[in-house]
């Protein structure tokens, strides 16, 4: 049997080319460049489809064209089954987008995760977000076995080891380690509130390069958290992208508060939604204002928009908020 010629057109596969290496940069992706350049970055969350049709991924991604620097692909969010985040990111990077691959510790052990990281590297995926993950009990397969072989901090440690030492956990050499820009999340709004800053420090010490937070609806609480972060010098070591979101109505907000783990929504938001004529519009207005407010906070490098089932409104909200200024993020219509 002859060895296939990989230069043959039939085998040709051109995932989004990596950008040239830059001094002081970890990855060769666009997202890190935007942040290191000091531009205010916008990221948005893409909900992977319940389908094998890759056009559904592209259609959703296209909604963010020109307003988003990187796209997060969730990994079984809420412990529900969807298309895998590795594959969504592969599809996105194929046409040049800058995806952030979310990895939850709920479903895979250290062997599976390390394999995925190498695969992701082969597909030019440059960013990874290490998450603990929602428990199986909140999703659509509550009878599933929970894995949690690692937690988010162990996962960050693992990714950093693979990247910087060029070996698996076992010590076995990786000839071409993935140069991943590593992120993680923090939820400063739930107990133990006073220890969250120490936990954040722990995550950054483990090797987190950027932080995307849980939904940030309580601005005074977040400002307080960020001022502690700045005081500890943590904003020098990692980039901060607080999460903002849209609430379709006061009823939805109440449902989220009661059913989605870890979401803190203050009463003032409920009052605004209840008092509005068009609650959906008001929800978007709140989100737009939150973007403007987080941009003003010291130490914040960007914003992460989670507009579940309202993805089509993200572009307008980002535009209305004016957080990007004159800058227009890359989209597939632009030159690579």
């Amino acid at each position, binding site marked *: 049997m002859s060895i296939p010629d990989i230069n043959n057109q039939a085998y040709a596969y051109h995932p989004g080319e990596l950008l040239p290496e830059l001094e002081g940069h970890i990855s060769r992706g666009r997202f890190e460049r935007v942040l290191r350049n000091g531009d205010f970055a916008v990221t948005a969350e893409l909900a992977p489809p319940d389908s094998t049709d890759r056009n559904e991924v592209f259609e959703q991604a296209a909604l963010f064209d020109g307003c988003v620097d990187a796209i997060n692909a969730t990994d079984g969010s809420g412990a529900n089954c969807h298309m895998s985040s590795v594959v969504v990111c592969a599809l996105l990077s194929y046409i040049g987008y800058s995806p952030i691959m979310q990895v939850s510790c709920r479903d895979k052990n250290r062997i599976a995760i390390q394999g995925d990281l190498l695969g992701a590297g082969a597909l030019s995926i440059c960013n990874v977000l290490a998450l603990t993950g929602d428990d199986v009990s909140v999703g659509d397969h509550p009878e599933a076995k929970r894995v949690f072989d690692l*937690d988010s901090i162990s996962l960050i440690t693992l990714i950093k080891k693979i990247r910087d030492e060029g070996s698996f956990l076992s010590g076995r050499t990786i000839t071409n380690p993935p140069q991943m820009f590593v992120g993680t999340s923090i939820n400063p709004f*739930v107990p133990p509130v006073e*220890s969250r800053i120490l936990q954040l420090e722990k995550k950054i010490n483990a090797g987190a390069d950027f932080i995307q937070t849980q939904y940030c609806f309580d601005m005074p609480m977040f400002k307080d958290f960020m001022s502690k972060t700045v005081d500890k010098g943590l904003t020098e070591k990692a980039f901060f992208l607080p999460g903002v979101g849209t609430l379709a109505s006061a009823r939805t907000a109440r449902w989220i508060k009661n059913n989605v783990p870890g979401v803190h929504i203050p009463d003032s938001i409920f009052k605004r939604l209840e008092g509005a004529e068009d609650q959906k519009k008001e929800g978007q207005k709140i989100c737009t204002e939150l973007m403007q407010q987080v941009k003003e906070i010291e130490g914040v490098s960007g914003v992460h928009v989670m507009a579940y089932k309202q993805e089509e409104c993200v572009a307008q909200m980002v535009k209305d908020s004016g957080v990007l200024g004159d800058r227009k993020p890359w989209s597939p219509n632009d030159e690579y």
Partner: protein
Amino acid sequence: MYRARLFASRHARAYEVIYNATSPVILSTLSVINKLTKGKLDRPITWFEKIIKGFLFDCQMCGNCVLSSTGMACPMNCPKTLRNGPCGGVRANGNCEVKPEMKCVWVEAWSGSAKMKNNLAIQEIQFAVNHSHRGSSAWIRLAKENKQIT
């Protein structure tokens, strides 16, 4: 036992004092026993450790004991078995996302740790559990390695 384990993290400072006083004695005794019996007593010692730590901390015998670094709260009682918790799903009342009737193990751990003299230990990164140690005695392993009980 749930109540005993809450008591432990809420009196973490007292437990720390007892730990610091007894752990060198326990380890050197085990080290001597181990040399004399060449591991023949491993099973009863493991059983004894399971009973004691099971009662005091709801110990799950992961074999990777980190109690004194986690405010005397055993992280293996966290349904996600986090070693560097808590997760982001803690309820507003400080209870667990998965078991609403249970106090979050890591909320207890951080408050327990704050009471301890060595309150910085919780900030050390604990890498994932070595599952090959599951069910074995952390005491015997440490005695053999000549390390301190952690």
